[in-house]
């Protein structure tokens, strides 16, 4: 297939993100924060897609890499002067090390990837339920240690003086980077090999593909993207870093499933659509005006709407809104012989 045909596959998700960013700039500065949040969530979901979408293996551990990235970027960017008060138990080398915004994001990605590699090395041998529970265990342990261990974190104090550098542009560029990396990966032979193991593990193994190695590679890449997204997250809402646990695991999984976990487009569409709905109902707690109609709901409605939506999609359209397909332009009709040739080769 020609490059011109392939290009929309990555351009459309990127344009959707850009459109969200422009919409965010167009609305009032009060609402802009919601759009920044949506873009950061989209970055997290794209990271989630890189592993789950390509491998077909469910992982509950992704948010632990987001958390590790958030903690890395957070601990390293709290101003030197604030550290003794905000993080009294912090290890000495972390107190003396301070980095800038971009460096903190890069380090968050590196540490997230390294942690995912270390975790994945043994765990990627597991499959099915054992893999699901084991990744869940990783999430529990990471959350537990990061929230209590004063040597590497502010423990129960929470992050307070992390510079809020994630504005609409940083979020947009970060999200675009994640999309570009995810697309580049799925087009490489590694991405294709992993997709082959998703479709038919036995056939893939018979063709000489090491399932363990390919899954580990994707897990590590997904961990790096998650760490990066976690860095974006902590620079946006440092005080909410403790939320990087079960609820976010659920919300991001819901986004991926609603959009369609089989494609990059699905991940982006799911993240933007679900976040749009979710944010709308969150904002409606303080009354929103919908074309002159004052909508007011109770706190918590957003989560309930999200849960119902997810169940409906799972029951009515299990492959998600996009059906797990990438975007492609409508084709001109071709003679039957051509079609059959195309079918034989795909």
């Amino acid at each position, binding site marked *: 297939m020609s490059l011109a045909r392939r290009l929309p596959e990555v351009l459309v998700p990127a344009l959707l993100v850009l459109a969200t960013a422009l919409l965010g700039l167009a609305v009032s500065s009060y609402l802009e924060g919601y759009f920044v949040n949506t873009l950061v969530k989209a970055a997290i979901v794209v990271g989630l897609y890189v592993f789950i979408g390509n491998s*077909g293996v*469910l992982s509950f551990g992704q948010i632990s890499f987001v958390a590790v990235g958030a903690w890395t970027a957070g601990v390293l960017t709290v101003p030197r002067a604030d550290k003794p008060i905000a993080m009294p138990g912090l290890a000495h080398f972390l107190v003396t090390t301070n980095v800038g915004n971009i460096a903190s994001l890069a380090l968050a990605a590196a540490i997230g990837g390294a942690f995912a590699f270390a975790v994945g090395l*043994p*765990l990627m*041998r*597991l499959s*099915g*339920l*054992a893999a*699901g*529970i*084991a990744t*869940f*265990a*990783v999430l*529990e*342990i990471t959350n*537990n*240690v990061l929230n*209590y261990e004063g040597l590497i974190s502010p423990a129960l104090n929470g992050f307070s003086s992390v510079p809020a550098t994630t504005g609409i542009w940083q979020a947009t560029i970060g999200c675009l980077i994640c999309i570009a990396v995810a697309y580049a990966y799925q087009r490489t032979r590694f991405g294709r090999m992993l997709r082959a193991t998703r479709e038919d593990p036995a056939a893939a193994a018979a063709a000489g593909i090491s399932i363990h190695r390919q899954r580990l590679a994707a897990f590590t890449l997904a961990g790096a993207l998650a760490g990066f997204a976690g860095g974006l997250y902590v620079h946006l809402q440092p005080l909410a870093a403790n939320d990087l646990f*079960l*609820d976010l695991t*659920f919300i991001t*999984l*819901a986004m991926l*499933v609603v959009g369609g976990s089989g494609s990059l487009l699905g991940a982006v569409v799911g993240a933007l659509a679900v976040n749009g709905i979710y944010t709308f109902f969150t904002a409606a707690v303080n009354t929103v005006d919908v074309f002159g109609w004052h909508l007011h709901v*109770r*706190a*918590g*409605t957003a*989560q*309930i709407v*999200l*849960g*119902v939506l*997810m*169940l409906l999609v*799972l*029951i009515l359209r*299990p492959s998600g809104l996009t059906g797990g397909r990438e975007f492609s332009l409508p084709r001109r009709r071709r003679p039957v012989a051509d079609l059959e040739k195309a079918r034989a080769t795909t």
Partner: protein
Amino acid sequence: MIVGFLSLQPLTWPTFATALALGGVYALMAVGIGLVFGVLRLVNFAYGQLIMAGGFALAYGAVWNLPTWESILLCFGVVLVLSVLMDRLVFRPLRTSSPTVMLVATFAVAFLLQNIALLKFGPLSKSVGSLAQLNAPWDIFGVEIKKIAVIAVATAAGCLVLLQLLLTRTPLGLHMRAAAMDFRTARLLGVRANRVIGAAVIISGLLAATSAVFLSVQENSISSTFGLQDTIIVLAGVVVGGMNRPIPATLGGFSIGFATGILGGVLPADKTQYLTSFIFAAVIVVLLVRPNGLFTRGGGAVERA
């Protein structure tokens, strides 16, 4: 952390009894989860929300000044209705889906019910009222042991024996075991799918209600997240024990509850916050060594087609 290990607290009889009770309750939950998994190949993440609903029923029973047995009856009623509804509305339409889709769906149900509870009952936790008196100790041979621990252990043991009799001595039990082993073949041989699944859902609901009573009394603070962490731990225990047979699943649930209880008692006070980490680290290690289950022999279950 290493130093923490060296200053473990001494193991006392009350700790042992508490651990035994927790193990018993987790064993009941494990059977409840395992039975449904057996016939549906569905890991019910929303099991904890059944327990939460039961807890709220007890709490509201206390608010409305119902007698204890009426509260407990209310708890059983609510949990049973909810578990049948869950099966009808969500699990039945998804029966032919992949295990991953079903797992994510139960995740969604859990999230949904938890947030409905939060919206309906508010963020403050509630008490179970007079039932909490069961937390008072009994003096047994000079050792003070909570009444609830004794009752929980006795009830759990009774339930497990009854269940074992049901599974091994009745036609329904035979059908359920056959369905758990290979659903498709069992159906070919005349096992009625809906009957077996219905029975599993109801028994699992009864076990959830029983566990709800014990957990509610032990913790005595019912909020929307009640039962969630317990379910995650039990699920881990069930998978560690061996998901596809009732006995390994039960043993898995018991072991993880017992281990949690003992560790919670012997860890020094400044290390108890890492209890979760210790338990889940153990889970990972066991899964790596015995991915098919700690208490199983031979291969895994036949995938449900």
